[in-house]
């Protein structure tokens, strides 16, 4: 009884229900949705958003927000691609270190400005959203890096070939999810992230190094956006200064929020965010299959986000009511 109740009280149950209902409806409308081929399509839609969403989740749990993840992805991807273009002999796997490192530095800059100038994260990262995008244009001279400059082994990591049961970028995303799960729930720093978001005023009174934790969280978010950057180069085999990562932050934040991470901080789980990414990917994959015109897809996408949040809100209120009744029943 208790175990069942604790599962039903979990925040993730609402989003999980939404996914099941959505897939069932789409599956009835078009049985092709429930085929292995389509599952593979959904699977390949997920890794980039998933990786960046893990970082964004930590930022939002700490009661901040990072709007610059799309531009960080773009800049990291562009710098890595430029390196491949200008120094063709360089080992392709070094690109990972470069992309992650550049992303981490950009994230650190976000965190440092938030701390130093005591500005809200939404303002600072709105600024760096444009700043980092602008730097991408300057560095690339506004020119796209085409597929011949992207190393073959890197492109192969996204290959939908029978050689791999799962493409490497999916495996990378799974690894990032598992590491984030451990970090958020079982590391000292991870728990301090939750504490800061839960009660920012109390955190310094309890000896939590708020500055260090904030810098760490933004650096992690930047590093993961950088990782998503090189994964983008792998997946699409080009890097474009204006398209790469443009609008990406909204997908990421939407997935995180749909996944039940409270914008007020302190609350959120890796499982929820994984489900949030899954739901958005299902919607993306379903719209063309349902024959919905491209012009309408954005509107539908937005509606799904709102509906998912309404469901989540309802579930949470029900959860709180259940807690309250359990309390009053106590002797």
């Amino acid at each position, binding site marked *: 009884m208790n175990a069942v109740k604790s599962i039903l009280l979990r925040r993730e149950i609402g989003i999980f229900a939404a996914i099941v209902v959505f897939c069932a409806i789409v599956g009835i409308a078009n049985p092709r949705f429930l085929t292995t081929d389509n599952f593979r399509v959904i699977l390949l839609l997920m890794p980039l958003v998933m990786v960046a969403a893990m970082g964004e989740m930590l930022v939002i749990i700490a009661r901040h927000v990072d709007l610059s993840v799309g531009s960080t992805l773009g800049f990291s991807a562009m710098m890595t691609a430029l390196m491949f273009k200008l120094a063709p002999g360089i080992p392709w796997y070094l690109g990972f270190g470069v992309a992650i490192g550049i992303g981490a530095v950009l994230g650190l800059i976000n965190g440092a400005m938030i701390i130093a100038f005591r500005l809200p994260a939404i303002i600072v990262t709105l600024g760096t959203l444009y700043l980092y995008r602008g730097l991408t244009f300057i560095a690339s001279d506004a020119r796209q890096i085409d597929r011949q400059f992207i190393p073959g082994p890197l492109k192969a990591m996204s290959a939908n070939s029978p050689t791999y049961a799962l493409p490497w970028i999916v495996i990378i995303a799974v690894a990032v999810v598992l590491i984030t799960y451990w*970090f958020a729930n079982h590391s*000292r*720093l991870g*728990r301090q992230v939750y*504490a800061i978001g*839960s009660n920012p005023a109390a955190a310094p009174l309890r000896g*939590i190094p708020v500055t260090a934790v904030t810098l760490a969280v933004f650096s992690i978010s930047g590093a993961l956006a950088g990782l998503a950057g090189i994964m983008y180069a792998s997946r699409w085999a080009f890097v474009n200064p204006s398209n790469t990562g443009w609008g990406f932050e909204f997908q990421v934040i939407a997935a995180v929020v749909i996944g039940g991470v409270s914008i007020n901080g302190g609350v959120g789980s890796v499982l929820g965010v994984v489900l949030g990414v899954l739901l958005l990917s299902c919607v993306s994959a379903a719209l063309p299959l349902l024959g919905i015109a491209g012009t309408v897809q954005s509107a539908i996408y937005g509606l799904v986000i709102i509906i998912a949040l309404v469901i989540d809100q309802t579930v949470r209120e029900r959860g709180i009511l259940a807690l309250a009744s359990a309390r009053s029943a106590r002797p």
Partner: protein
Amino acid sequence: MAEPTTDTPLIAARGISKSFAGVEVLRDVDLDLQRGEIHALLGENGAGKSTFAKILAGVHRPTRGTVALNGEVVDINSPITAQKLGVTLIHQEPISFPDLTVAENLVLGRTVGAPLARVHWAQMTREARQLMDLLGVRIDVTRPMRGLSIADQQMVEIARALASDSRLIIMDEPTAPLTPKEVDTLFGIARRLRGEGRTIVFISHRLEEVRSLCDRVTIFRDGNRVATDTIANLSDGDIIRLMIGRPLREYMKKHGTTIGEVALKIEHLSKPGLFTDISFDVRKGEIVGLGGLIGAGRTDVARAIFGVAPASSGTITVNGKAVVVTSPSQAIDLGLAFVPEDRAIAGIFRTLPVEQNISAAVPRRIAPGGIIRRKVEKALAAESVRRLRIRLASMRQPIGELSGGNQQKSILARWLLTDPSVLILDEPTRGIDIGVKAEFYDMIGELAASGRAILLISSELPELLALCDRVLVMSEGRLTANIARADASQESIMQAAVPRSTVAA
């Protein structure tokens, strides 16, 4: 460290002074706290007892003076240092991390290790359970803090103090939100901790509780320590006299007014958990004071009358007509006005210009048909500013830039525009300087002279005594006195204000 002898006090504070923004709130306080005693700090609101406690706990640093722990002078420069030295302050509303589990709240900040060190959940939970068992309380340590009762949150705080093996545990008005049974549990635990040789500082307004629990008592008044003694040596009368002490300053004069018929009549007003069976009336031209300690329910009664949080039973009669007030706009229509206590939260629109703040309560006059007549708004505001002598740079200035006193005048101006027959003022002079205060007193007198009924909520006894025709006193949600001007004194008001609720000893 030198081995402390048994008669070295645990804490020896010497010459502690503290100023906030140039205002001295603690003056040259010396105080010793012995090992294994429960020591009460008493005093009126603002007497300095909480400030002193916060200095011991590292929340504030003294402007001057030293604190010695076991004979060694220590610099308690932060709550973390205090924690390491074994000093824990338990706030009335405990600070916690509502989304984290009870067990995590217990160890947070105490655990050491690298940032990526593993959190040992099982061990943490086991230790938390042991602490709860030690205290004899049943709280599920794996549940989140959110939703825990205040009493349980306090228990978690006490457990936290034990987890870091605190030698000094300061409880700031811990019993105010507790039921008698919970108070009983708390006192049992406090006595057990004393038995273990720990020192407890207990801040409370309830004399009976202090009497049943504490060994010694220190009384603060106006930032000074005025007495420290064994509790048995002092009678209730002694304590109250020591708490009030200061001579009544006659800086206020009372305008002679004729008192007319009843303007506001309250009968049997109740709201469970806040106030019970409140009945009184206020006549035209009369200033009725409402005294009592903070938390006695005075503001809740005012909010109920004004329809902010309506009472659950009882009747309100305004100018002879029985009314049911369920919203502030209805109250305004009936001729009521309410200047709330905390202007930052409930009174001003901080970022809006002064003139919009003044005109906010009369939308129909400045904007008939929904379109704002800027000319009318300007004229009304300018007139108010002149009449109340509000000092400002420009009418378009955001009200948040004005001084406290001028903000308060602007809010008063807002309500005067509605031409109220009943005016409720909640702590109107808190946080404003003495010069503006005197102007305020004159204004309140003039308002009464013009036939308005005034209900003045105030924690300042001299203010109540000087301004009011009658003083009502509330204590713990009940009306405990209705004192005519001739019989009102600081003693009579304090006697009625200090709770004497039943304490299970």
